[in-house]
């Protein structure tokens, strides 16, 4: 059943269960007034018909047990309705929230990389968890609570006014007072709740900073100072709540007082109505019962209303994420083979105002290897990001094409699937190593995975773990070193033998010996593929068919290793330094 239907069903059954609840005092009234008190049946035709059907007043007086059975029947039916209401509600609201969570998650996955770079992870996580919880609370409890209170009022209003108008008026006189009082009071102290929350946040961050910075604390011998600081915030937090408590205590006290006054007023009016002969004992009992049935929801309504206002804020924050535009493909984007020459033609790219690539042009012929040498901030990682379309070029800032087709003409996913990329600071999921290498894709067998791991020289290390390839990495499992992570990332990139492979400084944390081994194995494996190796280590690049040197976003030198050496520029200077450390320093 769809969420909306479940919701409507829930409200329907709620109405039925309220009617059943309201029926019980009416039965009591019938027993008191008609069976015991012997008054003639004055109430509506429906009741009269029901009594007639059951055998008449005389019969029921003699067989009071059947009235009892009827009461239980009504209560049972009400209970059943109540259960269906609750079940529908939980199914409807949990289904809705699940869909919301999944929509958020998959949307975030698909948002452009530029969006990810610009947001704060903590803030987004909070929106996806706390704000979703606020919404859940609203639809699972506050909304239905409002509907319930409204129905309780409407039914009570209809029934009570049809019974005795002055009594009904007495019963409703305090309702607006108590609703308004709760609403405005709780709204008024809202800022104090906020202040208390902030004090808790403050206390939390003092504790957190102390515990994360424990080495600094110890190194300076600042334990006393830290304890005093914590004590201060701790007291502040406690005191704010104690003060808030004093306010709340008045609220609760006066609410109770109003509730009691409501009851007393009903009694007084009841006495005068009885004296005037227009109210029976049974009716009086009905009024007292209904009174207690509606006064508590009325008290709750003020709270619900004041809290519900938070929901719109949370919804707005969630909507902001959902409204951010996805990565889109151009109309007519295709899935053609991604091979052929890679051509960067006059590529210029900026992050905000900071230009990182300035008119960069180069060609990587199909099946060859390009090396890119550059220092920190030279723009070499951006070259890789652009190829995978993590960022798109602005119109008029050059173009990137593969096999003659502009990369924007490919479907984005298709393009990326055909480019195996290993990043310098790779991200591993808290899954097993096997799942990390195969990216959860079932088409790879364990042999494929082993082979890829072998080439990237991580196989032996993985086999050494107690659970081998089923070892979970990350917080809930083993921690891998930077070099190990890089090697897993390389295995991941080469698995499936994509036509294009990019290694973005992906061996920087691996020692020279292993580096050489991996490169030798890679050379064999990647034959036929077009490869881009980005590094600041010349030994990683010197076998490349062509090498470009990037500096401040510009290509300053191009050529093969021997050619570049001959040019006697930056490349040869770096090479000289890297290969002759011994002579230079000893």
């Amino acid at each position, binding site marked *: 059943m769809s969420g909306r239907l479940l919701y409507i069903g829930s409200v329907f059954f709620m109405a039925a269960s309220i009617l059943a609840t309201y029926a019980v005092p009416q039965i009591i009234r019938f027993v008191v007034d008609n069976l015991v008190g012997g008054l003639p049946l004055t109430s509506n035709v429906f009741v009269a018909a029901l009594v007639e059907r059951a055998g008449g007043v005389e019969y029921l007086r003699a067989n009071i047990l059947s009235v009892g059975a009827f009461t239980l029947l009504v209560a049972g039916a009400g209970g059943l309705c109540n259960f269906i209401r609750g079940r529908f509600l939980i199914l409807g609201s949990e289904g809705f929230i699940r869909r919301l969570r999944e929509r958020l998650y998959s949307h975030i996955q698909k948002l452009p990389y530029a969006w990810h770079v610009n947001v704060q992870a903590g803030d987004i996580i909070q929106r996806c968890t706390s704000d979703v919880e606020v919404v859940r609370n609203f639809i699972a409890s506050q909304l239905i609570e409002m509907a319930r209170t409204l129905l309780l009022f409407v039914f009570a209003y209809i029934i009570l006014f049809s019974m005795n108008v002055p009594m009904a008026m007495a019963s409703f006189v305090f309702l607006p007072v108590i609703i308004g009082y709760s609403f405005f009071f709780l709204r008024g102290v809202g800022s104090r709740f906020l202040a208390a929350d902030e004090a808790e946040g403050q206390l939390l961050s003092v504790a957190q900073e102390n515990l994360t910075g424990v080495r600094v604390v110890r190194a300076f011998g600042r334990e006393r100072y830290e304890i005093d600081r914590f004590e201060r915030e701790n007291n502040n*937090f406690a005191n704010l709540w104690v003060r808030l408590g004093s306010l709340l205590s008045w609220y609760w006290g006066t609410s109770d007082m109003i509730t009691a006054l409501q009851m007393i007023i009903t009694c007084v009016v*009841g006495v005068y109505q009885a004296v005037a002969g227009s109210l029976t004992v049974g009716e009086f009992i009905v009024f007292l019962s209904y009174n207690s049935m509606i006064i508590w929801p009325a008290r709750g309504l003020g709270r619900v209303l004041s809290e519900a206002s938070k929901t719109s804020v949370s919804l707005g924050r969630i909507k902001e994420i959902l409204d951010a535009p996805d990565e889109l493909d151009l109309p007519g984007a295709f899935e053609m083979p991604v091979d052929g020459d890679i051509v960067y033609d006059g590529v210029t790219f900026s992050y905000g105002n900071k230009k990182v690539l300035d008119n960069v042009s180069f060609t990587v012929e199909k099946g060859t290897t390009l090396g890119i040498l550059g220092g920190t901030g030279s723009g070499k990682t951006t070259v890789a990001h652009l190829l995978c379309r993590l960022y798109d070029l602005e119109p008029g800032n050059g173009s990137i094409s593969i096999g003659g087709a502009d990369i924007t003409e490919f479907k984005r996913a298709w393009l990326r*699937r055909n480019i195996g990329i290993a990043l310098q600071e790779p991200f591993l999921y808290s899954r097993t190593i096997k799942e990390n290498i195969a990216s959860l894709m079932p088409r790879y067998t364990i042999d494929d995975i082993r082979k890829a791991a072998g080439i990237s020289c991580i196989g032996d290390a993985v086999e050494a773990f107690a659970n081998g390839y089923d070892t979970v990495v990350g917080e809930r499992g083993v921690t891998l070193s930077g070099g190990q992570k890089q090697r897993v990332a390389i295995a991941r990139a080469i698995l499936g033998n994509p036509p294009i492979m990019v290694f973005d400084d992906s061996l920087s944390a691996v020692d020279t010996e292993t580096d050489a081994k991996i490169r030798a194995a890679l050379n064999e494996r990647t034959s036929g593929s077009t490869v881009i190796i980005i590094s600041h280590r010349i030994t990683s690049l010197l076998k490349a068919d062509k090498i470009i040197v990037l500096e401040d976003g510009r290509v300053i030198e191009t050529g093969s290793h021997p050619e570049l050496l001959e040019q006697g520029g930056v490349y040869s200077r770096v090479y000289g330094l890297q290969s002759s450390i011994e002579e230079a320093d000893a």
Partner: protein
Amino acid sequence: MNYFEEEEYLKPFSLKVWSSMLPYFKPYKKELVIVALFMLYCALIDVAIPLYQKHIIDSFIIPKSTAGLLPVVLLGVFFAATAMIAVVFFTRIAIKIEMKFSRDLKRDLFNHLQTLSLSYYNTTPVGYMIARVMSDTGRIGEIVAWGLVDVMWGFSCALFVLVAMLVLNWKIGLIMLALVPVMLLVTIWFQNKILHYNRRVRRANSRITGAFNEGILGARTSKTLVIEDINSADFSRLTGDMRRNSVKAGTLSAIYLPVILFIGSIAVTGVLVSGSGFVMNESMPYGTFSAMISYAIIIFEPIQHIARIFTEIVATQANIERVNGLFEKKPEITDSPAVIEKYGDNFNPKRENWEPINGDIEFRDVTFMYPDGHENVLENFSLTIPAGTTVAIVGETGAGKSTLVNLVCRFFEPTSGKVLIDGRDYRERSQLWLHSNIGYVLQSPHLFSGSIKENIRYGKLDATDKEIITAAKLVSADRVIYKLPNGLLSDVGEGGDKLSTGEKQLISFARAVIADPRIFVLDEATSSIDTETELLIQNAISNILKGRTSFLIAHRLSTIKMADLILVVRDGKIIEHGTHRELIRQKGYYKQLYTMQFEDELDLAAF
């Protein structure tokens, strides 16, 4: 962020667990008694309401008379007013108990954490400790205060209702007495079940948070691997789990309420059927009949309270045990009683007895194994470091370069052998004495939220503004500071995250220098820092080293070149030592390491 998953089990009630909290009850004995008394009064009023209505029916409605109504109304208002006062006071005091009880617990836990050794911190996630200090204590305080409220009100209310019913009509009262245990058992059973599923919901929730975290932090990788849809499918399993358990918990609640209300209806029906007979043969007045029905309706409230609080008291034992678990951890490094006697402890130092420090350090025959390790990382290691020497420690990431520093700082103590400072075993002096004389700059410098000035002052709490500026100048931090809009008063953000790593490092240098320590320890940053700041840092380091015994965990060539002595670490052990030239000539591991580690830096130099 840590998403430490902790299993929680339901255990039977244990007085022993709760009695460990006894000392925390003590300061609030008086308040607890007062709250209990107020609750007794509130229950009394709640039970009196049906009797009040009975009186209205029997004395005014049935005889159709208003004679004597005014005093009865006034009495009602009077009792309502006293009840209000009772409510005002009990809530006020209960909140006070709740907050102060948990405040005391928080304080003691936090203070205790300050005494624990760093080895504990190395193996315990911060989230684990935070959960204990913040949430568990809050939960315990809540149950202590409001549990008392509920228990007192619930028990006395249920008791008064039963007594009132038995007195009014003992036959009907007995029906009630039979139903109470049924209600109680049903409620406890459901509460336990619901609690069980709620825990699963919480666990599923923390997994979902973790998945969001990973989905956001791993976005770039997911995109390049094109596994967005696979991730979403994976996530869908988590939300499915969450939904399943939420629905189970919600359905149980949806069953529970109608069931307990139906049992209440049986009570009402019982009263209705038997009571109407009594009224007809005039052995029971109308008002009494009405009151009996009211009691049959309201008895369910206190029963529910009692049952709920009972499950919660048992559930809170888990929180208490977690808190106690932290209290039971003992510091591994402690000063001997004699040392404390002479030099004071960490919280109350006797600075007047502290000897000045010169800075000679000697490792004498030191053997060391980490408490969680399996083999010695140092064996019979001896090294004399005269005051003023600069020692650089080099090795690969994870090779164990911090071991010596940990020993010098007495974050760990030698398994055997001695570390001598100025010729005396450092265990003969207090930890605080040593720490006050060591300046320590971490690889990823930790700043506290607040202004730059406050952060520098952390090194010397009574430093004047002038001293702070001098220290900042000495390490060239002033160049960074004056680029910021508010200068020294600029906010550094939480953990200093408004500043770059290089800037943080400079501030932490200033913080170390203002204390004017004799021993200086630097764990150099590995991450790349822009060239300009890098130069400032190098300049700062050479300024700081002058005249101090220093240990540098070095990652940069320029830093190593400042050293008088280089120690080379591999697989946790010191395998070579000497000056740079000596080590290069040896053509050993150092040379290899050096070639690999510093070529990147050479690139930069070449550009």
